């Protein structure tokens, strides 16, 4: 009974994190900020859902769920950096959305293309 309640709370909390991530994907203005919403609350949401699910399945399957979490942790940063770097170099980062950009002066030749105005 208590296990069910804990599990349900974890699943719901995880689902709401994923929902907030999806909302961020729609509402946030740039590739980089959208990536934060798409990857990070999602990671927490996934952990919570996995924890909630792990309470309800046999131990052996719960261990496999641990593997899902491990792969999430070791792959997400790699992908985040690749996409972020490409977005920056491809000029998808709008300067007006940045308070400061300390990278721009460093890469005059391959910096993002500034849209006029």
């Amino acid at each position, binding site marked *: 009974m208590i296990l069910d309640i804990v599990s349900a709370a974890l699943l719901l909390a995880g689902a709401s*994190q994923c929902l*907030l991530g999806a*909302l*961020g994907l729609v*509402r*946030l*203005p*740039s590739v*980089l*900020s959208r*990536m*934060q*919403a798409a*990857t*990070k*609350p999602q*990671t*927490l949401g996934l*952990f919570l859902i996995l924890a909630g699910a792990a309470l309800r399945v046999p131990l*052996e*399957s719960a*261990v*496999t769920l*641990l*593997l899902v979490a*491990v792969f999430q*942790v*070791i792959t*997400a*940063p*790699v992908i*985040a*950096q690749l996409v*972020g*770097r490409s977005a*920056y170099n491809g000029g998808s*980062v709008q300067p007006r*959305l*940045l*308070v*400061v*950009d*300390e*990278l*721009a002066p*460093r*890469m005059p030749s391959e910096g993002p293309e500034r849209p006029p105005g």
Partner: protein
Amino acid sequence: MNRALSVAWLAFVWVLLWGSFTLLTVVGGVLVGYVVTAVWRPGEMQGRLPVRPLALLRLVGFLARDIVVSSAAVSWQTLRFGPRTRGAVLELPLLSSSDRVVAIVAGAYSLSPGTLVLQIDLRESRWYIYVVGPRDPADVETARRAALGVQRRVLAAFGTPEEHRTARELEAR
């Protein structure tokens, strides 16, 4: 020695993938590990990292807390500012010369919500990270301090004593 560790790790993942701890999966995992490490040689290691278990434990605890706190912060930005959310690209000093420590710090930055490593300049020893959320120069400095704190915590666990000291001095500035 390093290869044995790689094999053990691969065997562990293999057993988890099968989801059952039996003789067959363990032996199979070790075999797969040997084949994989024979075909793809692990990269050259540059000597051992100093590992401080207590600091490492603190780092893991910090990251676990950080992912919750910063997830809430990103969600708040989404709900409160939405399309008017702003960000900043910061230049930070890179304090370690070890590839593995750099990889760990980069992982820590990318894992915690709201930050993302854009560029690592090993020659100039500089990080460039994107932070979501800052709206004015004061926020930028808060974010810079937080990012330096992440690096300091990783160096406390894996860095040399000098690197750790430099990190602390930079953060206190």
